[in-house]
């Protein structure tokens, strides 16, 4: 069933993705990620010595600062900081550098829908740029359930506001491995089917949610390929002196 979207995309089509790394010179790692008109800048400083007061000193700690484009910092920003912190903590290998703090700063440059997923993707690329050891990458996508019709991916802000419900989903990236098929699966499902983070807004039925998960997994494979090409391409032609 064809759904008319304002910008002419099909249901499963993502907006044009663009990502560049190492754009800030003082930061240890930085990345800019844009999906269509939504653009987010992420910077990583770390690891720095010492952890904050209530954090476990036997592990590395991640601190997230979210700066909105305009306005003061409120509950929305605090919630995004917490979600981002817990997502990044689950992908980084925290035992490598204990008793250190890595700061991730997110600056929203433009918000045109799917802001949190773009920020998670940007933060992940910035962590790669900084060389923080990670288990796997986090690939994030926004799926929405319209009032009538099938699930659509990667909405613009206008589409997001008119939806019945939407879900931000984060999956691990897809694995290309030399090991035989099936040796990396858990409970019979491949690792990339696991959900790292899920945040939903609005009312949807349970079946709609599982459908969103399916569409999200399919899209995360495409995103993983984009990330892989981008990382390989930039690492072969970057010529850092020393």
């Amino acid at each position: 069933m064809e759904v008319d979207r304002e910008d002419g995309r099909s249901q499963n089509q993502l907006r044009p993705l663009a990502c560049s790394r190492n754009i800030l010179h003082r930061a240890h790692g930085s990345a800019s990620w844009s999906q269509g008109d939504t653009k987010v800048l992420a910077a990583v400083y770390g690891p720095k010595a010492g952890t904050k007061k209530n954090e476990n000193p036997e592990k590395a700690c991640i601190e997230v600062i979210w700066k909105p484009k305009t306005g003061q910092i409120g509950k929305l920003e605090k919630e995004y900081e917490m979600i981002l912190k817990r997502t990044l903590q689950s992908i980084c290998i925290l035992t490598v550098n204990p008793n250190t703090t890595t700061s991730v700063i997110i600056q929203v440059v433009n918000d045109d829908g799917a802001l949190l997923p773009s920020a998670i993707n940007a933060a992940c690329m910035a962590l790669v740029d900084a060389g923080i050891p990670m288990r796997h990458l986090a690939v994030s996508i926004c799926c929405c359930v319209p009032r009538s019709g099938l699930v659509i991916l990667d909405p613009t802000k206008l589409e997001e506001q008119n939806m019945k419900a939407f879900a931000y989903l984060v999956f691990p990236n897809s694995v290309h491995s030399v090991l035989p098929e099936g040796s990396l699966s858990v409970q019979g499902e491949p690792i990339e089917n696991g959900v790292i983070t899920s945040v939903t807004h609005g009312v949807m039925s349970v079946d709609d949610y599982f459908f969103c998960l399916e569409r999200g997994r399919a899209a995360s494979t495409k995103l993983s390929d984009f990330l892989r090409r981008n990382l390989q391409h930039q690492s072969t032609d970057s010529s850092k002196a020393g």
Partner: protein
Amino acid sequence: MGLPNASGDLSTEVEVDAFRRLFPLRFFEKHLLESIRPDARPLGRARDTTIALGAVASANGSALAKIGSTTMLAAIKMEVMAPSIETPDEGCIAIDFHMPPICSPIVRPGRPAEAAPVVAKQLSDTILSSGMINLKELSLVSGKAAWMAYLDIYCLDADGALFDAALLAAVAAFSHLEIPVVSLNDDGKIVLSEEQGLSDREPVNKEKRKVNLGSIPFSLTCILHKNYILADPTAEEESIMETSVTVVLDSSSQLLSLYKPGGAVLAYTSAIQDCIALTRQRVKELQKILEEAISGMEVD
């Protein structure tokens, strides 16, 4: 007194309380192997839940909800205000969640808890998107006056599953809410009517009425650890096994929220389905508890 253990590690020489503090994860895993938790609950069972309505006498609606030791006090105060221009016949609800230092040793006056603004925002989103309260019911005079409901939830004891207890307290407070009687005075302003005897002013609404609740949201937080799913964690369990999934369902089994903020354990489809099934059971339990509390109040 040591734990019975054949493998000869420290557990046989150390007291139970010390082992619990020194090796918390191993302490819990020993219990999980027997499909039980340290407080003798089976893995899928939530703690004892109680609701007391009318806890705050001066508020228009209030409730005290306890899930195990986690205690939440919710109170609603109504105020008349001018509705916004875009929605002239709708009232407004402002939801705030506070974690005062009484609730937990990690909260100090100068250092607000990290969890407080996050739970406040989640509560706000859930209650407003659930359609439990129809904002048009809160309207008095279209375009001129409408009710503003200030819902404040105070955490008195933070022992895990804060969002569940807060949502339950909020829902119970709304079910106890009575909209006061008001009338229009000579200046065209709405004032509270003191007694029924004043006959020169026509009351805008005849009697104290209860709000009609649409489908009520209920939630359950589960912790994922390896292959285990633990329902309704205590604060100790939450701090050791950090991956939590909160599912909010309403009484017609629609999914209002599936919140999993990161965490080392990945949630596969089977785990998500199990969490949703546990939440469905919990919704039935909570509906019963809420109905008993409401009918208990009405008898008085």
